[in-house]
């Protein structure tokens, strides 16, 4: 799950290429990695890739600050597959 997110953000959303791989603790929102259009795209990606709905009330910093935050959030949403 983390790797899928890293790949998508690194390939699709980032403004310019990074020298090193995106870290799961990098600040995505405050550090200039994702802009507001990127945020919308990321939510679309999460919804289709992990087959979940991200309701508007979940769109808060605590859920989307870093890849770590996103995966913690997704764990509360995704039903573990067998």
């Amino acid at each position, binding site marked *: 799950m983390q790797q899928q997110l890293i790949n998508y953000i690194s390939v699709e959303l980032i403004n310019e290429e990074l020298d090193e791989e995106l870290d799961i603790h990098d600040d995505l929102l*405050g550090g*200039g990695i994702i*802009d*507001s259009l990127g*945020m*919308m795209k990321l939510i679309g990606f999460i919804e289709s890739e992990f087959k979940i709905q991200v309701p508007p009330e979940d769109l808060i*910093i605590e859920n*989307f*600050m870093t890849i770590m935050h996103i995966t913690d959030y997704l764990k509360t949403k995704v039903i573990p597959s067998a």
Partner: protein
Amino acid sequence: MIYTLPHLIENSAKLFPDNEAFRFANQSLTYSEIEVKMNQLAKHLTASGVRKGDRVGVYMHRCLETAIAIYGIMKSGAAYVPLDPFAPQSRTLFVIQDCGIEHLVTTPTQTKKITKLTLQESGLKSIIGTTTELPSISSFSWEEIYAISLNEFKTVTILEDDLAYIIYTSGSTGTPKGIMHTHYSGLSYAKLSADMYGLTSEDKVGNHAPLHFDVSTFGYFSAPLAGATTVIVPDAHTKLPLSLAELMENERISVWYSVPLALVQLLIYGGLEKRNLNSLRWVLFAGEVFVTKYLKALMKCWPKAKFSNIYGPTEVNQCTFYHLETPPKSNEPIPIGEVWGNTEYRILDENDQEVSKEQPGSLVIRSSTMMKGYWNNEALTQKSLFKEIIAPGIERVFYRTGDLVRENEKGELLFLGRNDRQVKIRGYRIELDEIENTLVKHQEVEEAAVILVDNGNDDKQLMAVVLLNSESEIKNSDLITYCKSYLPHYAVPNKVHVLNAFPRTSSGKINRNKIKEILA
């Protein structure tokens, strides 16, 4: 006496030493603290060889250090030049070289980008605010700056006519142009705006704009004039309206200033019904047209706040205002209003003659808040000016805004669109803004952008892209039918595309060039 921008900090440090000047997340700086840090940075810059009139770059996201950086730079006698950390490296390098920036003030979070930048032939000599060693460039950490002793600190003499800051904006030719403001023009803006909105030392001013967008001068200049607190909205909150509304409530914001987009997002996604924002007394917006149906809805959410539509290109800061105490009655666009103090205007036709009463024309502005000119581009500066000769050797200099306006019967100015947003198809003159205004009046359309796609051989097509509200099931063809009932046939878009999100510039405006690329 206050006649330069650093005097704002010094004056409030005397009157309100323990008031918070700037807040960001859980950090804050009082006026007495920022005065010390500003002087420490100024002393360091002077010791590094920065002289009066030099340009020093500020390369940061929204953070507390932005305030220390701009005041420290101005105190050293230099002009600050904000660099957008979201901009492509080529553009950043262009600005650094265009105005000869040798010193850059930054924060450790930008280290990766700075390191890449310094690998290029940039002319940079030192970086302030990073802990990383850089090859062939000296670097200093903020800790080193804050350890500087202010014994024997000599203040550089600055006059009100000296350069204070340069803001780069996209030029229509594709090359960014640097708009030069002096301590005089910046301070004129601070005084006029602090006065108009009655800022006091009790106010909490919400600053949403990044430094490279001139709306930020309200939070960074006008609030310190009054000894108020400026709350710098973190980048993360600008992307998540629910978190932004929470921050506004927690910080008890009393005066808010942003682009309309941020307010529309708060209205639609901010969960405002759960928030107590009774502390808000003024909501200011500028930069784009606020779609009236959303303005009405937001004013109903915040009935205690007064709203103010602000208009003014970066070249003149603010120049007109239109206050609203109750929601507008119709869905027609609201006026940009009347010019404020120390400002006059003319409305000119194609031959620079004043238009007759209530006729549309180009707006030119003369004001104490006007820029000094474009950096290193005297030809462009001259082209942007309209000069009225009163007597031999005496002239009044106006700035050509490039905006089409009309005065209504009440003497209020109505914004009709950009001069360059007027297109011609098969001989018909079409205002692209008029088509956009029509589309957004539709119940289910949240935002619209209309562009002209020129396929050559006289094959020009009007393309509309729209953002629909989440419940909408309207078809593209229905929107075209809708346009046909409100617009002349030649102004009806040939195609309507539905997007999930619009590409934006870093100041939040719709990026029409990107939309062209998407449609191409």
